[in-house]
């Protein structure tokens, strides 16, 4: 039996998983998250990457889908090597496959060129 705090939404439900059965959830997303959490926990990674020629020197980015928690470090290392050129539009793919996870890294905001 494992108990955890759901991170799917700000409600923060207390979930229990007991031999594949979830309790304490108030939505299906919470149930699915709990099952993933005991087998392959995943997280959305948000960070910044270096931006050249833009109004800002850092571009905030996110993984479009959650990545395995165990690969967060590799994902960060990969993101830290990226260099992006302005202009950038929100949603633009910055990296098609972050650290071999198959997950895209996308721009979280638009930045104009200077």
């Amino acid at each position, binding site marked *: 039996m494992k108990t*955890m*705090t*759901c*991170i*799917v*939404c*700000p*409600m*923060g439900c*207390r979930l229990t998983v007991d031999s594949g059965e979830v309790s304490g959830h108030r939505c299906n997303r919470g149930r699915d998250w709990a099952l993933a959490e005991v087998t392959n926990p995943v*997280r*959305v*990674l*948000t*960070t*910044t990457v270096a931006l050249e020629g833009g*109004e*800002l*020197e*850092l571009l*905030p980015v*996110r993984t479009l889908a959650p990545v395995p*928690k165990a690969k*967060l470090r590799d994902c*960060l290392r990969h993101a830290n090597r990226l260099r992006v050129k302005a202009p950038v539009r*929100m949603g633009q793919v910055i990296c098609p496959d972050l650290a071999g996870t198959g997950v895209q890294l996308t721009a*979280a*905001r*638009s930045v104009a060129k200077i």
Partner: protein
Amino acid sequence: MGAALEARRLGVGDILVIERDKFLGGILQQCIHNGFGLHLFGEELTGVEYAQRFIDAMQREGIAVMTDTMVMEAEPGMVRAVNADGVHEIQARAIILAMGCRERTRGAINIPGSRPAGVYTAGAAQRLINIEGFLPGRRAVILGSGDIGLIMARRLTLEGAKVEAVAEIMPWSNGLARNIAQCLDDFNIPLLLSHTVVEIHGHKRLEGVTLARVDDNLQPIPGSERYIPCDLLLLSVGLIPENELSRQLGVAMDPVSQGPVVDQYLHTSVDGVFACGNVVHVHDLVDFVTLESRRAAAGAARWLARPKRGRCIPLKAGDNVSYVVPQRISVPAEEDVTLLLRVRRPLRKPEFILRSGEEQVLRRVRPVALPAEMVEIKVPAAAIPGAGELEILCRGEKR
């Protein structure tokens, strides 16, 4: 932006948004983490994305914007702002205040000790890391477990710093449960409840802090001190609505929420001056800020169409309720009224009772209420009496 877009949707033609920063979006621009927009957009956005959606909508609607512009003073009907082009006097029949809030600082909580470099508010550090690109320290202690402190614990860890502990003076955290899970537990960062910083060490640069356990009266317990070496202390010890302009406008203030007293249209005590968001009271979720901003826009649009104000009845915060917004209700109420309030202490099975004198107007029961989580209660227009005084109170078992 939420208010501007809603005002435009309601047919207001001439709208101007004034922003002192270089970009629109306020604090969202440094909130690169996700968790925003679930209520409004049905998906998890980063703060930056949430802001960008509004910025894009503003551009589509062609709403006028002045950035890098500081409002110096305002009076009913007029705003005086300054930017690189000079001083601008802008006429406005309705003004919506949306200045947000500021962080409490070390001075606000009187931590003894020297004054070395390396002591920051959590939000200042967030800006340094996420926008400016500087890591302000390598070994950190965070005082206060509000959401910004928790988010920064994770952010510092991801950027290669070591977060030794998050200390919280209260016996409970004021942050969202999921932030404790995903920002602290995920990285094995200890959360020390009933602990505070009693001494700051170092002269030029922070060298360490002394933590101590506190008793039920929040006083440090002698003998419980321990020294933690660190070069960074972040303070996440609360937010204060930024109301210099409101005060200067002569708006009546609520001493508990620290924001203007408003009615359900977010109309302040000064005719034609409205307020929404963290300048009224500190919100937990940006979605709720946006919803409130839309109500303020509706109030302002209504005022523009018919600049007359009805009678107001007061709404008081009673037992276990620290504050409620709105603090008064214009009657007769034409639409359902949304009450936003906070409880004083964690309560199980809280029962919220709205009453007019001795008469119960409305009763709502929730599974749990925490001071950190704003409670929303909808009151049908028909339930609101046309006269007298209203009080909202809460009964519940201590948790």
